């Protein structure tokens, strides 16, 4: 029983970070119907920028986060301005290929730009796990989840309470009408990508706290697909719930199934769910049925 509770808690904490990653994906999808296949590379670049803020520039964690945010927003703006604006109203396939291309470019250039700089971000926290009602909880995961939760709250307030958020929702609902009522589409696409930059820094950094950083962070991006397919590509609450489902599923299969089959099953489990979801509800649990299939 305690083992189950431990696994569920661990899954929820991982799910909170996944939710942040999924939001970075959904923000862009909602605003521009673009599918960003390179979320993982964005996270990787975000965390590398923070790491080089610490190791290369010598900043503290706060300063390095600000450094990373500025850097990633600049990358996002450049991508939007130089690439996406020229591709406005091109086919979906073109836009998808562009995100994949950018991902490969990021991965390749990161190896050059950050050569010799360590990719790890030291945790400013103790390592002893807390024990809450008999269940051990890793402090770094708890803090990471709390920060992720706060970010999700701020983001949802931004979308529902601010003028810019309202305009982004309008664009998501009907681009042509949004234009007709006087919303500058390009400016808001840029804002959406800027948000992706900031979310990449935050989720990349949190993931580095939890998983130690460096390798494998691109794989985090791949988890976004089972999450948004289960939750619905265009739904914020859906993708958050999807993130928790995937987090818990991974944790449970890692605890119960991996020892039986010799490990590794937890990494595939969420993709099995993804395939099942595609058979049953291809538009996700919370998505709208009119979504195109990719």
């Amino acid at each position, binding site marked *: 029983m305690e083992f189950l509770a431990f696994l569920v808690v661990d899954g929820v904490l991982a799910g909170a970070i996944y939710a942040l990653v999924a939001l970075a994906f959904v923000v862009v999808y909602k605003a521009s119907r673009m599918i960003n296949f390179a979320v993982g590379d964005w996270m990787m670049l975000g965390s590398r920028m923070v790491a080089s803020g610490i190791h290369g520039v010598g900043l503290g964690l706060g300063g390095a986060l600000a450094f990373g945010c500025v850097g990633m927003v600049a990358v996002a703006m450049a991508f939007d301005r130089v690439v996406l604006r020229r591709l406005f109203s091109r086919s979906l396939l073109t836009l998808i290929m562009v995100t994949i291309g950018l991902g490969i470019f990021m991965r390749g250039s990161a190896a050059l730009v950050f050569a010799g700089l360590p990719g790890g971000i030291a945790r400013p926290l103790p390592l002893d796990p807390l024990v809450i009602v008999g269940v051990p909880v890793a402090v770094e995961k708890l803090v990471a989840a709390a920060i992720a939760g706060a970010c999700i709250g701020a983001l949802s307030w931004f979308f529902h309470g601010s003028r810019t958020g309202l305009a982004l929702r*309008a664009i998501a609902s009907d681009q042509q009408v949004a234009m007709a009522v006087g919303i500058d589409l390009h400016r808001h696409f840029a*804002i959406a990508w800027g948000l992706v930059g900031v979310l990449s820094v935050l989720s990349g950094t949190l993931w580095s706290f939890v998983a130690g950083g460096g390798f494998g962070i691109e794989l985090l991006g791949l988890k976004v697909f089972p999450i948004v397919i289960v939750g619905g590509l265009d739904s914020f609450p859906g993708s958050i719930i999807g993130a928790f489902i995937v987090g818990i599923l991974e944790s449970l299969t890692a605890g119960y199934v991996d020892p039986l089959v010799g490990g590794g099953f937890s990494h595939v489990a969420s993709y099995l769910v993804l395939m099942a979801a595609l058979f049953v509800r291809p538009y996700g649990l919370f998505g709208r049925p009119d979504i195109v299939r990719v």
Partner: protein
Amino acid sequence: MSEPLLAVDRLSRSFGTLVVLAGLDLSVAAGGIHAIIGPNGAGKTTFFNLVTGALSPDSGRIRFGGSDIGHLPAYRRTALGICRTFQNIRLFGSMTALENVLLGLHCRTRGGLLAPLLDVPFRRSSGEVAARARAVAVLEMVGLAAKAHQSAVELSYGEQRRLEIARALASAPRLLLLDEPSAGMNPQETLELEALITQVNRRGVTILLIEHKMSLVMKVSKIVTVLNFGQKIAEAAPAEIQRDPRVIEAYLGS
């Protein structure tokens, strides 16, 4: 006569081999209600799309308030004072009536991206409070204040039409383009619409109206332009238009 509010000059637009507008010249005087009628496919909606910037013309000029706006993106034209409604209702369905109108106000309110961060978090800024008050006032004008917090899809057909007009009015247009506003309305709703159109016009908004219901056109408009095959075939006061043989021919066929 003073300079027209809107003047298009030899405006043309084709889709593939289909010529929809063929060198249209049209002027809209400030202050009036100007109707555009014509058979289906005459180019009326395309004309609206060109004026609002949803489409670019193949050739021709569009002047608004004396300056050339043909190269401006749609949102800049809205800021200059051109706003429209759509033939098939196009509201932001999942949003409330109030949010729809607030979006109409988008180009009249300020508040950069950082405004919500610089302000006291989770409290509305003074600018946003003012915007909400204005949005409620516009809803009152079209008789929807009581439904401000209902989502747009829950409203009745006639209410949705009026909400679309409210959203357009929120942008404080000088020229309001209404694309078949009475489509699908029953006689009672049409009467209410007629009253609303004249009321808006009396407040100083010039109205350009595409309409199929001749009774409405004859009652509200000061001048009627008839389009057929992308060209102007007649333009006169409503009573005269009814007797024009070219118009009768265009509608009934020869």
